[in-house]
């Protein structure tokens, strides 16, 4: 089955091209059909590939080159796939969750101006994401990496008449450029060191470079790229702003799949990271710190989607922590479960937003359970999974990362860090449980109180006249187009009772709820459960060895690591108990402050005013960047502008002034009087004749 894996990216690509070409004129309101069909096809292939790998334990990776993509001198980048357990799992959840989100979006985006554009971008995103995880070399990885960045940029700026959406799109793109710069340098260094960009060639020749400086620095450069894409401190600032995009985008790209590309990259490059223990420690430290930073910020946010965005940053921090303590399969397990429950949380938040007419402020709504009987349950399941309550998915994966952190030998220049990072992870678990249920109790419990906009369709920015006065024509043009769109679909966007929305919206929520409830069990049982049996070989040494078909594969790397840890600081069972108690404590605190006694929360917030302000302003990180980076750049830009305008442009103006001056001197001769021209002509002829005559006479 794995030989058909190349089809997985091709279906969404075909859909993207088809929708892009025909969407505006032919498909219109049916633009989601090719996208959903392509996703179904890709999902079927992806599941087939996954089944092939989960059947044969420790199966060798499938590698195939289709053609030479870039060949220049000694440099060769092929277009080929590398399918192993890791990429099989990744494509499965990318296409699976993608499919559910596509279905959800077909209901959520209905009647929106630019419906086809939305689905073309989404399909394009899935194409690049699957290329990213299936490619067999660093150049294809980079192609997918930049491609998902592009799709993300297009989708964050989807509501382009809204200035904040445009700003957020630019912020995401530019912040990612910073990370990608490091990533590109890392790839250059890999090529310089190993003379190849192919995974197998590079990873299998690591032993011959042991101890080299390049090997020490390559992981650091790659890490910068991962931090950019996966929103880790200090490059995390773009992700919360990316929530300007439509909610299905937040769910698919900015929570479930694209942001986990950094995890994929580091997991894929495990052999490189293993060769540089300091790099692993830095990954763990940054991951742990980001988890903490984002979790604390999430405590004091009021925007539904922003809370989940910070939560995503925090959970990604957990995953990096897992990678940093060499618990790769635990980290990828968390990626997998997180994809389900975070997509669920975002889509549920989207349903709330849809019902409340675009309102996202949790202070303006309360007791929403009465009007949204399905969403309240799906949101609850998602929250339980995020908070880490058994038997929901997040419990197993998060717990495993925390336990692995305590038991690891992570150290930076000889300083053991496992207890510090483990303690930090537990603190984050408490914070997570609290902020998750703060949101849940605020929005769904307590007396029913709906914002004034409830029941109205969210005002499309395409229909809004621009408040700021820029581009009034823009607003007007879009207004006409939006009216047109509404006519097309015959859809009434007037006031209705706020509800769970159409079946296309709540059915995916139910499927994702099942995922959030059940996927955790994939990581329990003998030998760490199905997921560890699947993934452990990927992180074992020898995974990238070039297999000689004549020699049967050695089973040496088959089972490694999971239970063989000799000295455990905390046993997994004890850890489960501790984290369960911590999750309940967090939920209990949230229950008291945000359901039973909301006045107490207000009073406490007033008492802790400086801290609350600090967290409400997100640790002032945006302001620090503003002062340290943007302001100097702005000043530099203005200096350049002055130089350009007055010195460079000045020279050009002077040069340009010469012909103008000549024109001014000659202008009075052109009076438009016929007889003057005739006089001039005759005088000229006379002068010529006299001249000729004088010359002849001489």
């Amino acid at each position: 089955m794995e030989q058909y894996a190349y089809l997985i990216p091709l279906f969404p690509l075909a859909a993207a091209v088809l929708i892009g070409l025909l969407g505006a004129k032919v498909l219109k309101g049916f633009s989601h059909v090719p996208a959903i069909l392509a996703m179904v096809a890709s999902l079927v292939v992806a599941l087939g590939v996954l089944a092939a790998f989960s059947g044969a334990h420790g199966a060798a990776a499938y590698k195939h080159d289709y053609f030479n993509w870039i060949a220049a001198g000694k440099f060769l980048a092929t277009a080929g796939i590398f399918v192993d357990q890791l990429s099989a799992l990744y494509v499965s959840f990318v296409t699976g969750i993608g499919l559910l989100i596509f279905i959800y979006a077909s209901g959520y985006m209905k009647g929106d101006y630019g419906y086809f554009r939305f689905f073309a971008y989404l399909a394009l995103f899935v194409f690049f994401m699957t290329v990213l995880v299936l490619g067999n070399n660093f150049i294809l990885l980079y192609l997918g990496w930049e491609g998902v960045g592009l799709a993300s940029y297009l989708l964050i700026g989807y509501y382009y008449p809204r200035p904040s959406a445009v700003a957020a799109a630019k912020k995401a793109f530019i912040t990612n450029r910073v990370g990608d710069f490091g990533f590109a340098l890392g790839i250059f260094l890999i090529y310089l060191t190993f003379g190849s960009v192919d995974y197998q060639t590079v990873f299998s020749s690591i032993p011959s470079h042991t101890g080299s400086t390049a090997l020490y620095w390559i992981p650091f450069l790659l890490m910068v790229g991962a931090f950019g894409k996966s929103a880790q401190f200090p490059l995390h600032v773009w992700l919360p702003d990316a929530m300007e995009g439509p909610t299905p985008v937040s769910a698919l790209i900015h929570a479930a799949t694209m942001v986990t590309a950094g995890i994929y990259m580091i997991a894929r490059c495990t052999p490189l990271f293993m060769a540089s223990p300091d790099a692993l420690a830095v990954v763990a430290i940054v991951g742990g710190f980001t988890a903490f930073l984002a979790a604390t910020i999430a405590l004091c946010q009021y925007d539904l989607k922003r809370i989940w965005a910070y939560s995503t940053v925090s959970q990604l921090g957990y995953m990096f922590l897992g990678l940093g303590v060499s618990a790769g399969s635990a980290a990828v397990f968390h990626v997998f479960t997180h994809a389900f429950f975070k997509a669920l949380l975002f889509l549920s938040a989207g349903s709330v937003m849809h019902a409340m007419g675009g309102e996202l402020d949790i202070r303006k709504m309360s007791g929403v359970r009465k009007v949204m009987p399905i969403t309240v349950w799906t949101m609850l399941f998602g929250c339980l999974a995020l908070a880490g309550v058994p038997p929901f998915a997040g419990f197993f994966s998060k717990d495993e990362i925390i336990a692995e952190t305590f038991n690891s030998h992570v150290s930076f220049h000889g300083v053991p860090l496992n207890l510090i990072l483990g303690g930090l992870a537990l603190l984050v678990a408490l914070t997570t449980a609290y902020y998750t249920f703060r949101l849940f109790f605020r929005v769904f419990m307590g007396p029913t109180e709906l914002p004034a906009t409830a029941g109205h369709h969210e005002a499309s920015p395409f229909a809004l006249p621009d408040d700021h006065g820029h581009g009034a024509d823009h607003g007007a043009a879009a207004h006409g187009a939006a009216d047109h769109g509404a006519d097309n679909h015959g859809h009434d966007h007037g006031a209705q009772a706020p509800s769970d929305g159409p079946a296309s919206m709540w059915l995916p929520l139910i499927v994702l709820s099942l995922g959030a409830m059940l996927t955790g069990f994939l990581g329990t049982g003998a030998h760490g459960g199905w997921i560890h049996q699947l993934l452990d070989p990927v992180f074992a040494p020898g995974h990238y060895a070039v297999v000689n078909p004549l020699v049967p594969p050695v089973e040496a790397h088959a089972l490694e690591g999971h239970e063989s840890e000799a000295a455990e600081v905390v046993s997994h069972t004890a850890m489960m108990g501790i984290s369960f108690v911590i999750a309940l404590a967090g939920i209990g605190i949230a229950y008291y402050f945000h359901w039973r006694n909301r006045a107490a929360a207000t009073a406490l917030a007033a008492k802790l005013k400086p801290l609350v302000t600090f967290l409400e302003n997100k640790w002032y990180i945006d302001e620090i960047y503003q002062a340290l980076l943007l302001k100097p750049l702005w000043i530099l830009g203005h200096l350049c502008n002055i130089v350009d305008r007055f010195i460079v442009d000045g020279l050009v103006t002077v040069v340009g002034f010469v012909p103008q001056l000549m024109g001014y001197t000659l202008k009075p001769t052109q009076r438009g009087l016929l007889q003057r021209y005739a006089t001039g002509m005759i005088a000229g002829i006379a002068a010529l004749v006299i001249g000729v005559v004088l010359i002849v006479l001489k």
Partner: protein
Amino acid sequence: MSPDLMSQPELYHYLVLGAILFAIGLVGFLARRNMILMFLSTEIMFQGVAVNLVAFSRYHMNPQGQSFVIFLLTIAAAEAALALGLVVLLFRRRATLDVDEWSDMNG
């Protein structure tokens, strides 16, 4: 003036006549502001040239020059009709025949 000069017109008599006609036309064209008179002046210059042509034709005993002048007169008649038509149109635009009224190309 000598009597033989008076008795028989020589070539240069005709050339002087042509030059005088041409000069009158030129001065008229440059000095008058009335479009019809300016046009008339161009016709006079034209005739001066025609006289030259006929004179040389007779002098060289070559009839081509004279027959050419017949054509020239015909075309001049057609062109006069056309030019007067233009003058009428211009007159209708500005209600005057003053050529200085048409100085739109003033730089």
